[in-house]
Every structure is written in C-alpha cells, then in structure tokens.
C-alpha cells in the first residue's frame, strides 16, 4: 500500500498551547474517520495534512512531498473545510468553475467538471443561483463539490455532513464510501459517530493532541481487553438465567435492570459467554442478546476517560 498521507512524529503548537503532540500515522487508499472531542486537535491535524500549516516538529508528507509549501500536490488533493466561507456573489457553477480554473482546466473542461460535481451533490437545480442565497446544507454541498470536482486522489473533509438533511447525509455518506472503494484516500473529520460508522470502520481517535488509537474499530475494541464488554439479554426467566451465568469465571458483573427486566452483564471473554448463553437459551427463554458498547461512541468514551 502506498501511503499518501504520512505523519512522522508531527507536533504543532500555537505559543504555549500544544495542538498536536508527536503524531505518527500513514493513510493509504480508503476512507478514514478522524474522531475526537472539541479541542482534540482534529482541525490542526487536517490543516497540517492539507498543507495550510507547517509542523512545529516532525514531518507531514502528502503524496510524497512536504505538505506545506508544495502547492503542486493540490492537483490531486481536495479540501472541504469546516468554515462557512464561500464566494457569495458567485453562482454555484461559477464558484466551482473558478476554482477548477486554478487547477489549470480550461473554461470548457472546468464547466463540464463543475457541472458533474454539482450533479453529484444534487445541486443542479440551484447551480445558477448565487451562493449567498443558498441554505446551510446547500452551502455545505457546494463546498463539497469544489473539493471533488477535479477528482483528487486525496480528500480531506472537515465535518462534511453539517447542516444536511437525512436524505443528503445518506447520499454524501454513500459518495464517501464509493470514493474509498475507487481507491481514493478520504479523511473525514466528524462528530456524527453513527454516520461515520456507516461510512468506515477505519478510525483515528485523537484527544488532547495525541492519537489514542488507530485502525479498524472492531480490532481496537478487541484490543481493549482490560475493558469488559457489556451485554444485554432479554429473557423470560431472567433470574434463573442469572443464577446459571454467575458461575462463569470471566464474568465481571451481573445486574437485573428494574425498568426493563433485562439482564446486564459485563464480561471479559465474550465468546465463552455467548456459547454458554446459547446453551441456556431454550431452558430460560432467551429472546434477544446484544453487545451494547461495541460502537464508536463507547470505545471513544472509554479511551478518552483513560
């Protein structure tokens, strides 16, 4: 895999404030989620990756060249920033075409590519209207269009779904997946956790300027052996089931929830537990069983709390 974005011991500070602290990772083709709370360093990381800032220490490479001071890489890099700033006096088509001209496309090519990009984000009906008259979601989509129009290999998307209705969120999420499947590198920074999970399982978890974890979400979860899994079981004979399960050696805790009557278990080795529950399911009327914390939010909350 050829890494397109490479951070090597990169740090960035603003005066006494450390925004990014000794961060190292590589990104190849595919979609990656950048996840972190406010002030974690996500924006700084994206700015470093997209060459808007230089690292205070270490290096950041984009397509094999230093990200800062190499504007030539932007032939193949697109950025959709989080700022709501556009050329309000331009129409949507003019806006995207104008920026394509900066990439070296002639007028006809720029017009064609701009129209295609605008169609991709479902703004064709509004492309002759001034951007200043767009709604928030439309502004977000036209920003995305300008990032995609020149068909870059690498895309940086900072909160791309902000302000979009559910239909467009689905459309853009599918687009991001498609771009990843086409072999492009897409780094998405977002707070909308469940939608990020629908787009990718590869995440970069960042907090206080440090990368807490990176890789497949499930693998990250599996590595967290010290953190017990939470399982919820719905059964007709909850108490009888509890009496049987309490003897398991890897069981950390067992509770019966008053409100629902469900059984809540915390376990270290889920496979053995699931096997046991399966054996007992007929005798105690097990109707449903599910893991409650194998998702981005719980993994992240756990890591951040450490």
């Amino acid at each position: 895999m050829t890494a397109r974005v490479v951070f090597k011991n990169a740090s960035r500070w603003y005066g006494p404030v450390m925004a990014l602290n000794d961060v190292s990772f590589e990104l190849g083709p595919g979609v990656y989620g950048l996840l972190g709370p406010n002030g974690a360093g996500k924006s700084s990381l994206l700015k470093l990756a997209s060459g808007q800032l230089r690292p205070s220490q270490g290096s950041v490479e984009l397509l094999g060249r230093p990200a800062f001071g190499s504007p030539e890489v932007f032939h193949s890099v697109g950025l959709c920033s989080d700022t709501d700033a556009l050329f309000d006096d331009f129409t949507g088509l003019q806006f995207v075409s104008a920026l394509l001209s900066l990439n070296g496309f002639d007028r006809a090519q720029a017009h064609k590519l701009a129209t295609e990009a605008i169609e991709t984000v479902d703004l064709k009906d509004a492309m002759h209207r001034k951007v200043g008259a767009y709604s928030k979601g439309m502004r977000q989509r036209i920003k995305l269009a300008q990032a995609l129009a020149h068909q870059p290999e690498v895309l940086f998307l900072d909160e791309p779904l902000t302000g979009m209705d559910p239909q467009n969120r689905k459309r853009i999420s599918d687009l991001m997946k498609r771009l990843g499947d086409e072999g492009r590198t897409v780094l998405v920074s977002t707070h909308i956790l469940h939608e990020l999970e629908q787009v990718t399982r590869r995440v970069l978890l960042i907090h206080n300027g440090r990368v807490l974890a990176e890789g497949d979400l499930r693998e990250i979860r599996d590595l967290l052996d010290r953190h017990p899994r939470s399982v919820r079981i719905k059964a007709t004979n909850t108490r009888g089931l509890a009496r049987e399960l309490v003897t398991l050696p890897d069981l950390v805790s067992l509770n019966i929830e008053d409100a629902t009557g469900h059984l809540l278990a915390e376990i270290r080795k889920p496979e053995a537990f699931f096997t046991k529950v399966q054996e007992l399911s007929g005798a105690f009327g097990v109707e449903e069983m599910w893991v409650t914390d194998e998702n981005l939010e719980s993994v992240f909350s756990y890591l951040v709390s450490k």
Partner: protein
Amino acid sequence: MSTQIYEQHYRRLDASIPLRKQRWIPIAREGLKALIALRAYLGLIAIAWLPTFGRLVQVYFITRFPEARRIVPIDDKFFFDSMAFQMPWMLLMAAFAGSGLIANDMRTGGLLLYLSRPLIIGDYILGKVSILFASLSMVTLVPGLVLFFGARSLAPDILGEWSHLMLIPKIVGFALVTVLPTIGIVLVMSALARNARFAGLGFFFVFVGSAVAQAIAWRATRSSYAGLISIQACIRRVGEAIFGLKPSRMTAELPPELAFAVLATIVVVSLYVLKTRVRAVEIVK
C-alpha cells in the same frame, strides 16, 4: 403516548411582562468593556491626551512668565484651538472604535442575538451610540473640561472669575457639535459597509473628501459657502460662533446657523439610515 392533532385557532399575544427600562445600558457597558480591554484603544486615548497636558504645561509657564500672556493669551480662543486640535484624534478614535460596531454584528449574525432578547432596534442603536459617545468624549469633551479646570486651578487670576464658568457650556456645546455628527457618519458607514475596514476608510473618505472638495471649491469660487460641503468646516464654523471668535478666512461669510443646520441634517439623516438599514435579516436575490 397517543397521537393528537390540535385545533389551530387564532391566539392573541398578551405579553404581561413589560420591557425593562434602560435596555441599552448592557449593550453600552459590554461594548465599552470590550474596547477598554484593547491596548490600542487605551494607547490612542493616552496619545490624544498629550496635547492637553502640553497645554496645561503651557498654562503653567504663562503663570511663571506673565510676559508670555501677550504671545499666548489664555482666552476663549485658547480653549477653542485646544479642542479643534483634538479633531484628528477624534477621527482616529471614531474609525477605531466605531467602524466595526454595527458592521461586525451584521456580518456575523450577531444582530440576531441582540434582537432575540427583549429589546428593540432603537435600544441597539442607542447602545452603540453610547459606546461611541463615551469613546469620543474621552478625546474631546473630557480633555477640554480637564484643561479648563486645570488651567483655572493653575491660573486663578486669569480664569478665576465666575464669568469664566461660561466656558464650560461652550466646551460642552462644541464637543457635542463635534461628536454627534461624527457618531452619525461612522455608524452609518458601519451599517452600510458590513466590514469594519471599509467602514473606517469610508468614514475617512467622507471627512477628508469633503474637506478637499471644500478647498477646491474655495480655490475656484473664493466663496465662504463652499464650507457647507465640508463637515470639518461646518464644525469649526459653529465652534467659532459658540466661542464668539472671528471666523477663519475660508468661512468668514458663512452663517453659523447654516453650518449648524448642515450638521443637524447629518445627524437626522444618519438616524434615519440606521433605523432603516440595521436589520437582522437580509434577502439575497
């Protein structure tokens, strides 16, 4: 919970909580606090006060060397010149403190935050006017009064009579004539430009452009009425009338009432423009 559909009858709004009085005060207070936190603001005030201290030193020397009174008499003209000398600092302060007052709110949508509180556009404008009035008074009215009371205490033999207290309303009057039209113009620029830099420069364009136009018109016509084009000339002419001084060469025949009418018109028109222009919602076509 069962689903319900509600009948939508006309409901009369019957607000029972009256608006508080002096709603503009928090706007003025917070605006001034934000300005005072800026070193540049305090620096500008400090520099603007230097001429006043210079004049107080001048008064002190005059008390020590009475012969100097013939060269630099401490009379109405002394105070008029002192206040007139503050005009450039007042213009700088107006541009610095006033150009972004409304422009920034309209550009960032902050105006909506104000209007989502129980206050009206008039309170907002009054609050902004108060911020500027306090700021500009710090470089015009206050130095003028400090100079008067300082000179009176340093030279009681020159300024100790009760009749000299008439200088106080003259100083206040001239300060008002200087400050109010300036506030009107800078706030109008701020409301129209939506960008603090352009508002500040537009404000200077109006002042400088009108003064230069007056100079050109006077060169061509040698008519004092050319002074009506220039805001600074009108302010100066009214000030000369307030202090009972001989008018300057370029506006010798300009009636001060006419100059005052121009300034009053500026204030009224400014208020009208602010009332119509300051809106929370803008329709983009």
